[in-house]
């Protein structure tokens, strides 16, 4: 198991050489982490109060998401994301309300209310591919996106993120192998958060960690402390640099922990030992980076507190705004199946619009999502 890169230790002390970063960039990274946590908190509250049906806790993953996001150039790079990665769009300036639109599945949702919450897709500000529920499918797609840039002699890179469990999908095996064979400009970022729903990593695979899986594909593997935003930034930046230079793909394992249930439908107390949560709380990525920034004098206590308060009210406002928007129109069921609506869907759309506008009674109550 390749040893794990760490730059800031859990107490916030610098233990490695920090990457050269402008103050405003480091503060932007801190702000993005705080806003990620705030967005996550807000979504958990919205779900508990029944305003949205589902969310996926991002607590604990902020450093991995934001550190990776900061290493990318939104103007030329692409992202083929895992669903547990709020920090990437947040760092790159996707408005919180656009993300909330998806949580509510309203008329402005990029997925037009067709997908479950946390299944974002963005195009205009960011090449952020549509999140899929079937796991691992984004991995070979990332390779295809990268090979397209390779063929056009562009210097863009595609970052794809996925969980530890997702390394056992078809997509991981085919995507890693194609990338190795074609030297595609891809960065594979495995979020090892200890669990795949209730399956611990040791039941997921017998390999010594996940970085080593690169060996099977001739791809170098690196392990990093996923709760150390500067360490993640550095390894991802180096991998991006290699990819841009035409030196091929890299597999990065970010070691972190899922600080909650798999989703709002999951009760981890059934299978996660409470002590594990305590142990990892002490390695909290936010506290750590906050302490570092204060110690290094990049940020004052007052500035940090202000960022935290702003974030909380920003997310509350975003939720209010998204909640107030109407649901998508009925005929949105029938668009985007194909570029043009074929005759048979035109007929079905006309039927649906006629039927539901004329019928007296409403429609059934909605069910509840179990996972």
């Amino acid at each position: 198991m390749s040893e794990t890169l760490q730059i800031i230790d859990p107490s916030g002390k610098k233990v490695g050489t920090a990457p050269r970063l402008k103050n405003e960039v480091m503060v932007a990274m801190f702000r993005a982490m705080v806003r990620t946590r705030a967005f996550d908190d807000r979504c958990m509250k919205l779900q508990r109060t029944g305003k949205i049906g589902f969310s996926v806790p991002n607590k604990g993953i902020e450093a991995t998401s934001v550190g990776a996001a900061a290493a990318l150039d939104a103007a030329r790079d692409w992202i083929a994301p895992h669903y547990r990665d709020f920090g990437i769009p947040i760092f790159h300036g996707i408005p919180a309300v656009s993300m909330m639109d998806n949580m509510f599945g309203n008329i402005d949702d990029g997925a037009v209310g067709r997908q479950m919450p946390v299944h974002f897709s963005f195009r205009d500000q960011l090449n952020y591919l549509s999140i899929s529920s079937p796991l691992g499918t984004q991995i070979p797609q990332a390779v295809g996106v990268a090979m397209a840039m390779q063929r056009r002699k562009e210097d863009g890179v595609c970052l794809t993120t996925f969980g530890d469990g997702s390394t056992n999908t078809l997509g991981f095996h085919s995507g890693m192998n194609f990338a190795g064979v074609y030297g595609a400009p891809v960065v594979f970022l495995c979020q090892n958060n200890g669990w795949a729903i209730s399956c611990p990593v040791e039941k997921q695979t017998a390999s010594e960690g996940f970085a080593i899986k690169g060996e099977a594909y001739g791809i170098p593997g690196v392990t990093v402390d996923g709760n150390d935003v500067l360490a993640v930034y550095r390894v991802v930046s180096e991998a991006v640099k290699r990819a841009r230079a035409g030196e091929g793909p890299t597999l990065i394992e970010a070691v972190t922990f899922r600080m909650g249930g798999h989703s709002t439908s999951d009760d981890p107390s059934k299978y996660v030992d409470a002590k594990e949560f305590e142990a990892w709380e002490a390695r909290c990525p936010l506290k750590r980076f906050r302490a570092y920034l204060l110690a290094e004098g990049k940020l004052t206590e007052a500035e940090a507190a202000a960022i935290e308060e702003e974030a909380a009210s920003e997310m509350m406002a975003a939720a209010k705004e998204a909640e107030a928007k109407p649901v998508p129109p009925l005929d949105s069921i029938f668009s985007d199946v194909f570029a043009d609506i074929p005759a048979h869907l035109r007929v079905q759309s006309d039927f649906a619009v006629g039927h539901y506008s004329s019928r007296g009674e409403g429609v059934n109550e909605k069910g509840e999502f179990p996972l």
Partner: protein
Amino acid sequence: MSELTMVQAVNDGLKSIMREDDSVLVLGEDVGPKGGVFLATEGLTSEFGEERCFDTPLSEDGIVGVGVGMAMNGLKPVCEIQFQDFIFPAFDQIVSEAAKMRYRSGGQYTVPMVIRTPYGGGIRGGLYHSQSGEAYFAHTAGLKVVIPSTPYDAKGLLISSILDPDPVIFMEPKALYRAFREEVPDGVYTVDLSKTREVTPGDDAVIFCYGAMVPVATEAARRVKESRNKDVRVVDLRTLMPLDEESVLQAARDCGRVVIVQEAPRFCGYGSEISALIAEHAVETLEAPIRRVAGFDTPFPNTLENYYLPDARRVTDAVEEVLDF
């Protein structure tokens, strides 16, 4: 006897047969300590141990492929696929291997395996936690396809499927998992495969349905009795393959007016086969067009799911249409 929901009946069915038959075992994602995301396998690992109910790595291809191997070597694996939407990574093992093993080996190797999987809408699951893929499997020679609509049938059909010498795709309508309770006998009992169930009698029209559409069709029949004073027969197909084609044709001949209901998209759906069977063997007895009430030919939406799914009102309209024809 106890009052159980469908998901409890599935759980009870697994426990009952596992107590009597050591060769039965359960594998899948999160089926162990967590008991499955719908709790269908709750308590199995604690009662039977890790050897007989265990969590697998995140690979449907592995779950089914390993299951096929176990089945060829004396075990009766029950594989759980967490949502039917996630069965596609295992499609090659199901369609190319499990379905064809007996045939291609001249009966030397067989696959007495069950793949349990929750399917269908009703939980705000969007594109990937709502699909109904029964037609893919019913079209694949060598697979049996079973879909219960009541707790009693769920347990009895599941046990029959586990004891069956061939691979069975056992699709559980998640919308009915906790919809209602029913008296379910304790211990092992079976419900025969390839037999339809008459839910309500009648010979003015017949509704063919299965799974979560059975209560919908039954409610529609009740409404039509009120609105038209007509007796509508509701037939729960239960085993989609091998289908009891004769009983389907007989019901069509008895009633002369046919409506078919499915959640899945209409085009090339299972209901198309029911319609084609009747058009081929009983067309002369038809007094009206064969109406299909189905999901629309689109992916499954989320916010608007209840406008996508057929409900009692849409089915009632269709039945009244064929009655008024």
